[in-house]
């Protein structure tokens, strides 16, 4: 990693805080991001599962669409039900292409007067170009490049944030609110990427360090790097765009059927709908994303070939590693659909060895999202 390379990398509004905290900075999606802090990946992972972890995800894109009918227009680009989304509710969906492939996955929030969305860092420029190319004249697209984004995740996260924003712990999973934290106008969303309860917090860039320092001063909170973010989301069975879902995988192949509601299934009207709904209705996707549990202790990394008993290649691992909370290796990947049933015996070509594994249900660690009592 050379100094010249780093000079072209972007920094988030929290960069100096990462340095102060001893973060090990690495290039990620065009940004210099902390992969870990002195606590280490394992310690950070466990801390998040036990207490509360603070993640800088400011590299992700925050975009607002303004104008009448923005929800209806968005449905021409995503298979999620956006029209019927209630105000201050969040939906997970994806931009699809004409072949049914996934261009990016994203979170869409319907706010009182507009739509707020969070897209992946590596895709944000292409997502914005894609939206602009399709944007009707009466709608405006605004990139909120003057805001940081952090996630506070873990079983104690909601309690911590409610000390700054009273009532935040009463928000339902996948709901949104606008609050003041340390005098800063923040958008808080009860969602995340760890399988734990918690919020994502959008903060004006010039107040981001102050807000983060206030959160980090709470005894339950530690700063968490990208390394633990990856092991946490893998245990939670959540997809990493560019790895577990790409333009070569449809939402059905990616086992994301649940993200397409009944009305969109009936009406279609999104890019690649023929292919995607065909796979859904006929159950004929040739490959499916599944969880994989290696029988031994050796992790199977991304790119590991999946074999049948006769050494035929039947799939590939798209994310794999060691799950600190699970206490062993975990992976996800694509297999030919006739091998996708939970419990199916498969084999992993790890280096020169053929390791036994089974197709397994995800998540590997139970999700602990907050569901508001009815």
């Amino acid at each position: 990693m050379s100094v010249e390379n780093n000079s072209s990398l972007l920094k988030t509004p929290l960069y100096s805080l990462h340095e102060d905290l001893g973060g090990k900075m690495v290039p990620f999606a065009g940004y210099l991001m902390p992969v870990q802090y002195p606590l280490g990946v394992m310690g950070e992972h466990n801390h998040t599962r036990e207490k509360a972890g603070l993640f800088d995800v400011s590299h992700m894109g925050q975009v607002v669409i303004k104008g009448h009918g923005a929800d209806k227009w968005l449905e021409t680009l995503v298979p999620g039900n956006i029209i019927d989304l209630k105000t201050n509710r969040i939906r997970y969906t994806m931009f699809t292409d004409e072949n049914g492939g996934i261009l990016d996955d994203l979170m869409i929030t319907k706010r009182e007067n507009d739509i707020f969305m969070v897209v992946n860092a590596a895709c944000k420029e292409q997502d914005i170009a894609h939206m602009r190319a399709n944007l009707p004249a009466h709608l405006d697209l605004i990139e909120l490049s003057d805001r940081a984004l952090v996630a506070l995740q873990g079983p104690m996260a909601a309690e911590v944030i409610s000390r700054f924003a009273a009532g935040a712990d009463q928000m339902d999973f996948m709901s949104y609110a606008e609050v003041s934290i340390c005098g800063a106008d923040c958008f808080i969303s009860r969602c995340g990427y760890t399988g734990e309860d918690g919020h994502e917090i959008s903060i004006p860039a010039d107040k981001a360090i102050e807000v983060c320092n206030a959160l980090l001063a709470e005894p339950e909170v530690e700063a968490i790097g990208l390394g633990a973010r990856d092991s946490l989301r893998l245990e939670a069975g959540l997809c990493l765009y560019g790895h577990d879902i790409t333009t070569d995988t449809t939402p059905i192949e990616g086992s994301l059927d649940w993200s397409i509601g009944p009305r969109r299934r009936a009406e279609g009207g999104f890019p690649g709908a023929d292919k995607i709904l065909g796979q859904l209705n006929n159950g004929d996707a040739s490959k499916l994303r599944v969880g994989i549990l290696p029988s031994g202790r050796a992790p199977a990394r991304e790119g590991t070939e999946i074999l049948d008993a006769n050494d035929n290649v039947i799939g590939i691992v798209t994310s794999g590693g060691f799950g600190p909370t699970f206490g062993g290796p975990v992976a996800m990947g694509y297999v030919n659909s006739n091998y996708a049933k939970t419990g199916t015996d498969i084999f992993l070509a790890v280096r020169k060895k053929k390791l036994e594994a089974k197709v397994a249900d995800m998540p590997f660690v139970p999700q602990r999202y907050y569901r508001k009592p009815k």
Partner: protein
Amino acid sequence: MTIYYSEDHEWIEVEGKTGTVGITDYAQNALGDIVFVELPEVGEDFAKGDEVAVVESVKAASEIYCPVGGEITAVNEELEDNAALVNTSPDGDGWFFKIEIADESELESLMDAAGYKEFIAGLE
């Protein structure tokens, strides 16, 4: 008994014709929490510089290279259940394997403790 160090951050403790090999404290610190070690098999032959073992941290897999050529005579089976020994005791209980050194002159290209200390100081 003498300990030598390689530029790939392995150590080899030599007693007669037998060397005991592990990775240095500097290496375990750089790798982070180690969750799995793939060891060679007893009886396998390796040349100096061959990939002889693999260390997996939560983040990634890293190859370990044989500091001298020879035949594997023992492996540390404790690591199968407790790979974290490499983190907690890199130069003790976290050893990887023992090797019957084929050509002792290969030790000459390795560093002594003072040389290795200087080498890692130059990396920071």
